[in-house]
């Protein structure tokens, strides 16, 4: 028997969401205990700050330019390499339960396999996963969760926030106590909400395995991604009136706007509602109208969702322990990208390479039985990326890392990271909206600096950029791009970025907005 792998992802979770990373509101004792027994990565970044590209990197272990999923709506080819297939070939039973999003969600022609299986209820999986039961952020669409809701609790569908409006644009309908966008009181019973559904279906799949099976299970929670509509029965956990505003939100409007104005122009254009650079952000919402109270209410609901995730993970870990697998279990916990949650006066996400969206929680709790130095508790400060996950799963399984994977297994401590050259992590953004708006960001995080350059598009002329000193300016308020004293450092980072960036093989067409 080998080691079992439970890969847990959330969607759109910030680094500071959990107690182990300094979060002071959501109670996350289960995740915190994984951190206390394992390795926490304090500078983990996605290779892209939206779902599909980031998840494609997780499953392939490849850069964006190699797997080609350069924006939401671009499908990962069915025959793309997959770590699940590698593990399946070596005898692992494999499953993905929850949100996959390797293929577009919005396709009424049902051209994509994940939608097809969600629509029919088949669970035979693909991409090397023997089993798939899929969910996303609500109860509509072509997922197994939506079908389960339709078949069993159809009266609850209207309780979820309706994400798309009549024009197929992302809605900014306001709700809650404060009129915050995409907030809704959802009367659904907790057991029927997708967080518990994902945990329950994971447990059901595990129950079907033999005791001596080796297995890899990707348990993928759709929360705390917007809309913010957790079960109403649970919202009492965090009263938004009791919260403090995020450190990253300058309350004084003039201060806030001066910070935004020091960044490339698309920041201010979005703030004023003149440009929405990401389809997933509500098309008609104007960030400048966001109030402090709305930020607090959104944050409170996010904390509630994170507590529910933590408890769901606890249930799954209990089920695993009951099967006698606890000693052989590796757990990897992370998310696909972050969320503004009020930083700079924004919600949601988009072409903005700041820590709100780029700094992720990442914890690896190696199997207690693993030995070989993996029982040491560590915090790794060197930069790592989600590109390192697939090779890590191979290493855990004792399988050679395939040549097509472009990362290497996660370091177990800083000494290991330094010895193996974990110096930098790259994050990129490309988008082309139906109206022609195109933006192209390339970022490198290295030596405590984050440097972003903008290639020419419809908003930028190619001269713009951002440079932040994380040690002295962790909130990323001071853009040093044009600081003469930092010019040589900036140029050095840009050269390093260019030397390590993987250019795309082709820019395939988006097949859906998301």
């Amino acid at each position, binding site marked *: 028997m080998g080691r079992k792998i439970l890969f847990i992802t959330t969607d759109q979770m910030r680094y500071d969401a959990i107690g182990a990373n300094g979060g002071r509101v959501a109670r996350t004792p289960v995740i915190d205990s994984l951190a206390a027994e394992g390795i926490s990565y304090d500078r983990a970044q996605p290779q892209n700050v939206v779902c599909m590209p980031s998840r494609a990197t997780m499953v392939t272990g490849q850069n964006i330019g190699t797997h080609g999923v350069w924006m939401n*709506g671009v499908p990962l080819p069915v025959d793309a390499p997959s770590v699940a297939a590698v593990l399946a070939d070596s005898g692992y039973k494999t499953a993905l339960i929850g949100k996959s999003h390797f293929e577009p969600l*919005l*396709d*009424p*022609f*049902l*051209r994509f396999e994940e*939608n*097809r299986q969600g*629509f029919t209820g088949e669970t035979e999986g693909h991409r090397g996963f023997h089993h798939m039961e899929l969910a996303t952020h609500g109860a509509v669409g*072509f997922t197994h969760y939506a079908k389960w809701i339709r078949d069993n609790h159809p009266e609850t569908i209207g309780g979820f926030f309706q994400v798309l409006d*009549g*024009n*197929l*644009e992302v809605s900014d309908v306001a709700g809650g106590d404060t009129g915050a966008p995409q907030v809704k009181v959802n009367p659904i019973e907790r057991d029927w909400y997708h967080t518990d559904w994902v945990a329950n279906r994971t447990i059901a799949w595990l129950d079907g395995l033999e005791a001596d099976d080796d297995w890899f299970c990707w348990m993928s929670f759709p929360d705390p991604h917007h809309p913010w509509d957790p079960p109403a029965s649970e919202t009492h956990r965090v009263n938004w009136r009791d919260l403090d505003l995020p450190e990253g939100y300058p309350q004084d409007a003039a201060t806030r706007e001066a910070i935004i104005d020091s960044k490339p122009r698309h920041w201010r254009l979005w703030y004023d509602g003149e440009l929405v650079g990401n*389809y997933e952000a509500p098309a008609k919402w104007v960030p400048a109208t966001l109030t402090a109270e709305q930020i607090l209410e959104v944050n409170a609901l996010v904390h509630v969702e994170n507590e529910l995730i933590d408890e769901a993970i606890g249930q799954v870990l209990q089920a695993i322990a009951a099967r006698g697998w606890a000693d052989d279990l590796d757990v990897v916990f992370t998310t696909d990208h972050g969320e503004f949650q009020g930083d700079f006066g924004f919600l949601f996400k988009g072409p903005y390479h700041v820590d709100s969206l780029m700094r992720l929680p990442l914890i690896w709790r190696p199997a207690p039985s693993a030995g070989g130095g993996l029982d040491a508790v560590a915090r790794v400060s060197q930069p790592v990326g989600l590109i390192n996950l697939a090779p890590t799963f191979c290493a855990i399984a004792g399988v050679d890392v395939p040549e097509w994977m472009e990362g290497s297994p996660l370091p177990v401590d800083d000494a290991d990271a330094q010895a193996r050259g974990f110096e930098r992590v790259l994050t990129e953004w490309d988008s082309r909206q*139906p*109206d022609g708006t195109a933006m192209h960001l390339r970022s490198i995080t290295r030596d405590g600096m984050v440097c972003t350059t903008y290639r020419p598009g419809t908003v930028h002329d190619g001269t713009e950029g951002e440079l932040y000193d994380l040690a002295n300016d962790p909130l990323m308020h001071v853009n040093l791009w044009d600081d003469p004293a930092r010019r040589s450092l900036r140029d050095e980072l840009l050269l390093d970025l260019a030397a390590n960036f993987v250019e795309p093989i082709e820019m395939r*067409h*988006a*097949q*859906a*907005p998301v």
Partner: protein
Amino acid sequence: MATLRTHARIQRSADDVWKVVGDPSRIIEWFPGLDAVTVEDGVRTLTTKSGLPVFEDIVTLDHDIRRFQYSITGPLPVTYHLGTMDVIDDGQPGCLLMYSTEIVPEPMAFVLDGVISEGIANLARMLDEHTEEQR
């Protein structure tokens, strides 16, 4: 309003290609994701594999200039749509198939762009194994 355009050179005569394009019921042979199609009284009704019906008014079916135009009327959230297919004998080998779409709201272009491209590629492949598709 979003505009989509695609075209393909097909190594068959314009008359041969028009036999397929000019028969609105034959869309099921080449357009992906369809379970059924009916044409009645100037209305084409598609049923997608997800069970969604798509109602289309046939705007133009001109056999002389080999032009087919249709307009989605529902229930997709479309406030304006015009799809145009032209089969052109341009004096070059084979013929040229042109497909353009104008649509409001703009996000619908994302939904249709990929499926139309796939459909045109299917049609070209169906009619001639060797085609030079360009976008």
